[in-house]
């Protein structure tokens, strides 16, 4: 009897269908509708009570108008590109900050490691919103950072940090740092120390063996960390709206605007569908690199 076997496969797949595929189909369907002032605020919607006529009527009224609309206003492209740019820059910064931390953790003594991992995970125990609010307190004109810098005498005028892209980068790097540190740490921790001794034995100094051995061998962790940061940051909405200024343009904010300010659910859905298609590229690349990694092991 293969029944049990099928059941085991069926359960996760039905979750996937229920939690991802069905909502996605609903969003795609909505993106092909037209906005109206009604309940619900779009048309057509499927009315099964009208039978076959209702179904054909439904399908003939769907169109790609909203997608065409998105191409007509360069706002959307600029917002998508700006999201990609912000995601790329923050990924690089997160990597530059996260790698040394992961490296330090991997080189710490065994008794310290659990504590250090704990410290990296600890912020997750506090609400994400509260942590971002704290940053507003830190970065504001009268905030801790400015007070501290003024006290040190490094600056004599408070810096404008909050409501700028700098604050957005700080918020993103802070929030996503654990997603960068943990995979890199995992790959560095696995690193065979005899490889570094071998490198030393073959004439490398510390810097050389770091770049020639440590970095290439933690590549899998670096790639995983970068994707884990890059992918969610593209669609980030909370951080730019709390820490960013009015000129911080991200697609998440545009989506909010379409949905709430314009009440245009269909256009909002079209924005979301395109966002998902854009995200597919790095996700597929990530999957590929993971697969390659598995094959190599």
């Amino acid at each position: 009897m293969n029944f049990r076997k099928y059941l085991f496969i069926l359960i996760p797949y039905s979750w996937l269908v229920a939690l991802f595929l069905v909502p996605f189909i609903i969003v795609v369907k909505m993106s092909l509708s037209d906005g109206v002032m009604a309940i619900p605020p779009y048309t057509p919607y499927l009315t099964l009570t009208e039978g076959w006529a209702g179904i054909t009527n439904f399908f003939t009224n769907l169109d790609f108008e909203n997608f065409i609309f998105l191409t007509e206003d360069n706002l959307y492209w600029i917002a998508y590109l700006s999201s990609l740019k912000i995601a790329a820059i923050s990924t690089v910064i997160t990597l530059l900050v996260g790698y040394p931390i992961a490296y330090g953790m991997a080189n710490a003594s065994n008794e310290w490691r659990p504590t250090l991992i704990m410290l990296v995970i600890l912020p997750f125990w506090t609400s994400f919103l509260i942590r971002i609010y704290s940053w507003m307190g830190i970065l504001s004109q009268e905030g801790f950072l400015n007070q501290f810098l003024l006290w040190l005498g490094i600056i004599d005028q408070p810096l404008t940090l909050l409501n700028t892209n700098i604050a957005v980068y700080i918020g993103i790097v802070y929030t996503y740092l654990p997603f960068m540190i943990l995979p890199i740490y995992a790959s560095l921790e696995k690193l065979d120390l005899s490889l570094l001794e071998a490198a030393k034995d073959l004439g490398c100094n510390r810097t050389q063996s770091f770049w020639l051995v440590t970095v290439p061998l933690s590549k899998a962790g670096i790639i995983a960390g970068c994707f884990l940061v890059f992918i969610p940051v593209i669609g980030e909405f909370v951080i730019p709206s709390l820490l960013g200024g009015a000129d911080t343009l991200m697609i998440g904010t545009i989506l909010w605007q379409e949905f709430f300010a314009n009440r245009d659910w269909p256009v909002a859905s079209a924005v979301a569908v395109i966002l998902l298609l854009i995200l597919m590229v790095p996700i597929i690349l990530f999957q590929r690199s993971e697969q390659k990694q598995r094959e190599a092991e």
Partner: protein
Amino acid sequence: MFMTIFEPWNETNSKPFIEFRGVSKRFGALTAIDNVSFSIYEREFFALLGPSGCGKTTLMRMLGGLEKPSKGQIFIDGQDINTIPANKRSVNMMFQSYALFPHLTVADNIAFGLKRSDMPKSEIPDRVNEMLKLVQLDNLDARKPHQISGGQRQRVALARSLAKAPKLLLLDEPLGALDKKLRQETQFELVDIQEKLGTTFVIVTHDQEEAMTVASRIAIMDQGKLIQIDTPDLIYEAPSSVRVADFIGDVNLIEGNAQKMANGKMQIEWAESQPALIADSSAQIPNDGKITFAIRPEKIAMTKHKPDDADNAVEGHIQDIAYLGNVSIFKVRLTSGQLMNAQASNTRRLSRRNFTWEDKVWLSWTETAGIVLTK
């Protein structure tokens, strides 16, 4: 043609290539190396042998510059190695796990050290090919380490460590990961390569057979101390202590009281109502006369009846037989109660064997077959 025997350690005017002077190494409270002094000569294939944890690996890692001595000095070619940084010494190491770089191809692994040296870039590929030929891996240059077999990986590791033509090569359990047959083949190859290159090799191993096969001299280590340095035959035939005798090969140890006889030989009382054993030994008998008599199983003859002309003969019955193919080990319970191993070659087919379980037998050996150990 006159063959000179390679025995620089016996020549008074030869200069040691490596010299340990009173070297100690402590890790916290643990003393890994305890005041060790010895020399290794150029072109030697020197084995450090001992049970795990005896300090042999630490000793080698100090040579490779991966550890620093807590006390004492190590000289290579007359220079204190503490004054030369690790990456400037003409010493390379082959690691136990091979430590091949998994992200680099076989050729790039071999070229790794060369690229760090002052060798002109254009010469590197030739040198890599030369090394690949040396270890017979010509076709595998483009493979990654995980795409080749364990034996091939071992060869890559050897080629990589030899690529820079070091004056000294350190090998840390180089064959430990190979299966027995491959290990034996590779041992001979290793010796061939060492002789061909004339490089001084220092090998760390816990496998006494391996040490016996490859080494010109063996240093036996135990608990951070060197207990004997000698050629394989002397280590085997003339162990300096019970420890060495027990560690190398199979041995029967009989405790007894020794007395010098008029003819200079030794008479050993070892069990009540048993005739004393006679041994031809120059060992100094300690004051209390307590010694250990060691005899290898293969030096013992086994007969049904008491041999007439034997120097020593004891009686017992066969308690167990271990059939090893080429030889069999007979465990014989002596009438005095001791258990003694005797080895016999299986020159005949199994069914024609003379001895079987519970047979009464006599074990005999000559005066010179055993050794008297006082330590």
